[in-house]
């Protein structure tokens, strides 16, 4: 039964990936509207993926999304500055890991806060 379910997951995933290519295959010219969507969608999708990655943030409870926000800002600023994907990712991830692995709880417990 379990191997059947794995097959089902694999087949449905592949179907979703193949469907657009089966509909607009090589023999027919791709309709204008799909060409248009193909050009503008990457921008919208990347925004959607960023939101999707950050969907688990809870603003009302500790840590109030602070690690995610600080690390995201770090990624954006470093990337605007250096334009080097690797540096931005490594630095942003390091910031996030340091914050989430304890640095933040120390900061949040400072007497002044």
């Amino acid at each position, binding site marked *: 039964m379990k191997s059947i379910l794995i097959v089902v*997951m*694999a087949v449905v995933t592949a179907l979703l990936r193949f469907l657009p*290519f089966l509909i607009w295959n090589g023999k027919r010219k791709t309709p204008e509207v799909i060409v248009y969507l*193909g050009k503008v969608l990457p921008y919208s999708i990347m925004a959607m993926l960023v939101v999707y990655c950050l969907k688990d943030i809870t603003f009302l409870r500790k840590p109030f999304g602070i690690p995610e926000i600080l690390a995201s800002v770090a*990624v954006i600023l470093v990337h605007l500055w250096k334009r080097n994907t690797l540096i931005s990712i490594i630095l942003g991830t390091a910031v996030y890991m340091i914050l989430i692995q304890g640095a933040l709880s120390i900061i949040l417990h400072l007497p002044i806060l």
Partner: protein
Amino acid sequence: MKLLKKVMIKTFPVLTGYLVLGMGFGILMIKNEFGILAIVAMSLFIYAGSMQYVGITLLTAGAGVFQTALTTLMVNARHLFYGISMVEKYRETGIYKPYLIFALTDETYSLVCNEEKGEDSKTYFFLVSLCNHFYWVAGSLIGGVLGNMITFDTTGIEFSMTALFLTVFVEQWLGTKQHFPALSGLSCSVLCLFLFGKDKFLIPTMVLITVSLLINRKKYGELTKE
């Protein structure tokens, strides 16, 4: 050789992310008493990160075929989007095409969607897809073999995926004067996240984005023409 170097550099962020997320998947599978074979089979043939994590829940909860199919449809519907936007770019990729389509994950999409069609773009697409697939299978295999032996605290390393998408987003933003599609994606996603909650917002978001892009086609369609 130059191409291979480019592929290595481009896929490096995915290497780190996939090794970690793949290992996480492998470890979870072992903890739920699945074997190495099931781990490798899922990573090799399903090859969809978040779906595989959801898949563990389905498998252990004894879900039926219909429920499994429906859940997969919901979780992975965004892949329809990737397909639609890659129809033109992947058009003349010859024998690579079936594999390129099969291996079009979120991360692979983020690396190929802005690539201009060029002389060796076909090979580039293929190598990126293959490397990423390999990282993912390798990661889950390592996770499955090592099980609970890992002591290094990797909490938070999954942020590398978020960071990857953020850098692509910034690059795209700097690369165009036309910010409507990006802003539309952002606002529709946030709106739907609040309206529908984090488990159900992707599909309404996709519908809303498509509608907003289509409504504004007259306005922006001309500008995006080559």
